[in-house]
């Protein structure tokens, strides 16, 4: 990349499952994948179907890729086996995830699951793979990028990442429920709460802690990328799905005093026209708090 700032490129912005068709041509129909670059350092975050185009777009390939995983729900891993650099024996690929996710990622790439789930033969995968487990809350470094982690409120846990380099920062909270209606953060909840079932004190305290840690991590960040899967009208029916609305995103952005907010993880059936309408509705609201609001869009690079 040029200069010494921090750059974010969106390769997949759609949640749950890929959504091909004429209704998604503008914002894109690929599942989550972003690229974060600072100087000569680069990481890929999540490997939804967007990583397929990323892998095929590289004209001058680096010899070492770093791929971070927020979690391993299908929409965040389904592009990985089709990432073209994995077929190059001269390439090294480092995979980063929590200890509970790494065995599954390893199985997807190396073991028996390939023959059963993935339609390409194992021997095509020639890159040198290595795996790095991190604990949520831990920080680590990839080249010039300092990376911090926080737990989000999502089934089976999702990790939020902050990237810092050259005095700039960006935060990726791709999958999280708001910190109000249900506690997913540390344990899975087998069923949604009944409408008459209030959260108990323990759950409320835990959620408040999770929320504070999330807000602390994105305090005054240059760019917060946040789950805006549902509209406020849809949300009550899907409160237990582990996703937020643009209103929830804006609430966190305000309290953390972020500079730019990008709504991410668009619902698969949401059309380009509907997304344009969401942007038109929330942009003026965000501006009142000096927040520049955008919708994450495939192919766009944000320079910080």
């Amino acid at each position, binding site marked *: 990349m040029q200069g010494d700032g921090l750059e974010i490129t969106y390769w997949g912005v759609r949640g749950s499952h890929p959504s091909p*068709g004429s209704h998604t041509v503008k914002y894109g*129909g690929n599942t989550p994948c972003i690229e974060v670059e600072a100087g000569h350092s680069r990481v890929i975050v999540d490997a939804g179907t967007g990583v397929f185009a990323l892998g095929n777009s590289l004209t001058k390939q680096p010899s070492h890729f770093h791929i971070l995983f927020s979690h391993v*729900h299908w929409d965040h891993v389904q592009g990985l086996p089709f990432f073209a650099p994995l077929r190059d024996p001269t390439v090294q690929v480092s995979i980063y995830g929590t200890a509970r996710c790494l065995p599954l990622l390893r199985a997807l790439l190396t073991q*028996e699951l390939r023959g*059963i789930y993935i*339609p390409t033969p194992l021997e095509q995968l020639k890159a040198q793979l290595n795996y790095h487990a991190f604990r949520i809350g831990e920080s680590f470094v990839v080249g010039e990028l300092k990376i911090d982690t926080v737990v989000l409120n999502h089934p089976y846990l999702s990790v939020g990442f902050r990237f810092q380099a050259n005095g700039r920062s960006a935060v990726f909270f791709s999958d999280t429920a708001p910190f109000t209606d249900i506690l997913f953060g540390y344990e899975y909840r087998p069923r949604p709460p009944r409408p008459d079932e209030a959260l108990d004190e323990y759950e409320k305290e835990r959620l408040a802690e999770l929320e504070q840690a999330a807000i602390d991590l994105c305090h005054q960040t240059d760019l917060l990328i946040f789950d805006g899967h549902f509209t406020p009208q849809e949300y009550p029916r899907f409160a237990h799905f582990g996703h937020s609305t643009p209103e929830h995103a804006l609430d966190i952005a305000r309290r953390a005093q972020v500079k730019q907010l990008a709504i991410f993880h668009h619902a698969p059936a949401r059309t380009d026209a509907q997304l344009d309408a969401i942007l038109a509705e929330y942009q003026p609201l965000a501006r009142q708090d000096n927040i520049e609001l955008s919708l994450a869009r495939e192919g766009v690079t944000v320079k910080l």
Partner: protein
Amino acid sequence: MMQLRFWGVRSDIAIPGRSTLKYGGNTLCATVIDDQGNLCILDAGTGLIPLGRELVKQEFGSGEGQALFLISHGHWDHTQGIGFFTPFYIRDNRFTFVGAGSEELAFYDTLESQLSPALSPLQSLNHLLARLAFRETDGQSFQWGTLEIQVQRLPGSAKPGMDYTPLGFRLNQGERSLVYIATIEYPAEELPDDIVAFAAGADLLIHEAYFGMYDYQPGWGHSSVSLAVKLAQKARIPRLALYHFNPTDTDDHIDQMVKNCQQLANNTAGSPLEVMAAREGQQLII
């Protein structure tokens, strides 16, 4: 009379974007409806998801729908729509799945293990509200509505670790029939007699087109598209719908492949053959 419709024609991974707008970017799914309205769903890739949104506008929306799923094998481009198929979330809809397992996993387990809590918020097929039944094929033909369904085990990749057996399906109604071969790798690039016999005399062959005529790579579990043309001709099938396209194939590439196949058919002595490419949303009456 059978009504055929394609909902997803792409292999491996869904490909959204401008380069796939004509033929569509969803992974594999097709439907056949017999003349009494019985619904048969062939494979359950992401094409299944828009199908589900259509079905809930009819009897599936009120829990009165039923359908048969024929799954050619458990690779996720044939199954990844299952967790997002809205008729599964409506009580009393009924579904029967027919497919095959692998050496390690029963058919049911190939589907169930793809919905484990790590991979899917759904966590289990048991959380679906509809009634689902799973039948491992015994290779025998069976009846669904007025359709007679024949099942044929097909050769797949011979490479180690590729533990699966793809199935081919033949749907017959009266004098009419179509053959569905979504995934096959012909051993030594020869047409086995049992597969020619299985397809013989059908009105339409739906056949994979993962590789073009000149880029076949052994071991991937797929075949050169020229073998699709040869099978159609040898089995005296008048129409061939290319299906299961490589994810890197753009619409233009597919157009060219159809031309090449048509030319190959025209230049080969044998029964006349019309070649077309399966397109998302396209309907054919058989």
